[in-house]
């Protein structure tokens, strides 16, 4: 089985994001960037499946500007076999990304495509489902457990009411939840080795995909600030304030 894993470069999850003064976006200059956290879970799961002998190859793919390659290198350092970077500039909407992935899937013919359930920058939560639609494949979203069977997967999904299990025939798309596994860290020797692993370069234009955004971003602004609260000295004071001042209990 061959697994394609899609990874995205985003502002690191620990960074306090700041809005640009001109309202055109958020500040990304000199800001720490990392792999989108649930994409790390997707890579980890693919590598684990390969280690268990149920997959033969793990390919990491990213789409974006030159530096997006870093996320593929990181995936290679934790066990992916080879990488693909599809160069595309500017804002990339999930629809365009899924069309690019569709082209690559048609060429590479993987049995499974894994990715994080949501990117923590645009918070769209769309790409996996869109790719599944374009390929007419099953989709197992928000996966917190994956059991690989012969020609199918049993996937436990995190849903609002609790947990749901579905069975999807291969080929399939799986979008991964943070609780799926504990991503490993890359060791220094493996980071060095990853530099020698093949990384194919493509571009959205080569693949014939127009990535021009369909959605106009009119402005980006700071959310309304909460006004600073107070510290109370005791539990009794807290309960009195909730009862008599905030009037919520």
């Amino acid at each position, binding site marked *: 089985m061959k697994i394609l894993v899609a990874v995205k470069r985003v*502002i690191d*999850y620990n960074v*306090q*994001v700041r*809005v640009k003064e001109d309202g055109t976006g958020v500040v990304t200059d000199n800001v720490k960037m990392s792999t989108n956290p*649930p994409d790390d879970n997707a890579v980890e799961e693919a590598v684990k499946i390969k280690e268990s002998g149920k997959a033969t190859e793990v390919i990491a793919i990213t789409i974006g500007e030159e530096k997006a390659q870093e996320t593929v290198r990181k995936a290679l350092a934790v066990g992916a076999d080879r990488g693909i970077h599809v160069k595309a500039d500017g804002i990339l909407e*999930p*629809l365009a990304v899924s069309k690019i992935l569709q082209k690559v899937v048609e060429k590479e013919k993987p049995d499974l495509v894994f990715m994080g359930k*949501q990117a*923590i*920058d*645009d*918070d*769209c*939560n*769309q790409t996996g*489902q*869109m790719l*599944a*639609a374009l390929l007419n*494949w*099953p*989709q197992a979203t*928000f996966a917190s457990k994956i059991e690989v069977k012969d020609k199918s997967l*049993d996937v436990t999904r*995190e*849903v*609002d*009411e*609790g*947990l*749901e*299990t*579905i*069975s*999807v*025939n291969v080929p399939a798309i799986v979008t991964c*939840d943070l*609780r799926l596994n504990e991503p490993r860290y890359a060791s220094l020797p493996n980071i060095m080795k990853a530099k020698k692993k093949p990384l194919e370069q493509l571009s959205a234009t080569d693949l014939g995909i127009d990535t021009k955004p*369909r*959605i106009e*971003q009119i402005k*980006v*602004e*700071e*959310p309304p600030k*909460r006004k*600073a*609260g*107070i*510290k*109370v000295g005791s*539990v*009794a004071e*807290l*309960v009195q304030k909730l*009862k008599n001042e*905030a009037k*919520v*209990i």
Partner: protein
Amino acid sequence: MSVLLIAEHNNKELKPFTLNAITAASQIDQDLHVLVIGHNSDGAAKAASAVPLVKKVIQIENPIYENYLAENFTPVIIKHAENYSHIVCSANTFGKNLMPRIAALMDCSQVSDIIKVISPDTFLRPIYAGNAFATVKSNDKKKCVTIRPTSFDAAPSDGGSAEIVKGDGADEFTLTKFVKKEEVKSDRPELGTARIVISGGRGMQSGDNFKLITAIADKLNAAIGASRAAVDAGYITNDHQVGQTGKVVVPDLYIAVGISGAIQHLAGMKESKVIVAINKDGEAPIFSVADYGLEADLFEALPQFLEELNKLNTIQK
């Protein structure tokens, strides 16, 4: 222009967030139709028809729709989407799973998780875990939009009598099969709609210690939430998680206990009307969003809290 809303329901009745989505959908256009796809779903269809904002209900019946699978719902929705300018549903795990599958097949760039309708093509949505708000305009002919339910009031649910028409289903998608759902049953208010939420974090130290929270939740008729750290540690099940990738809650009162306040958790609760933080670390970021902060050991504070509540003559329910 008309709006088609995909109802989330359990065949007998509408799920509460469908009513919030109806409010938002009616702000896009008043000609609002609701699609009820299910099996033995007359109850849900009647409930939708009773909502005064709804102008028409289209009911699709087939045993294959008993359990909701995006792969089965999508072709039905596409079949019925022709005369609508907008396809909408709530941005919970139901709608998040479903809508992009529809949007891609209609070649539409979806607008996810809107918190405000500015005009029929322009919406406000949070990005970066709510650290920025983006105003976006969709230029697609047909628009696919998901709605953050907690940002809109629930629509009144009775008094209406919209016509219910039967519609056609589509072929079954046989490559995906529903296996089981482990639903956590509880007599408490639902986390997403509760007036009061009390949440525990890593500071709770064990699942057993959540009984301190449960006792207060019982007293206040509150829902119980948790930070991702508490869920990851196995203290409590995932359906309680509040945050960027969990549930977004906007209760009148949110009590955060032993929660440091990571950006990802704040994303799920910082719009609450009144926020209380109980934490022994006075520097914890949760205090920066709290209206009332109590710097204390939760293992002392929670029993005292219950004691103080017991002293009150009346408690709002």
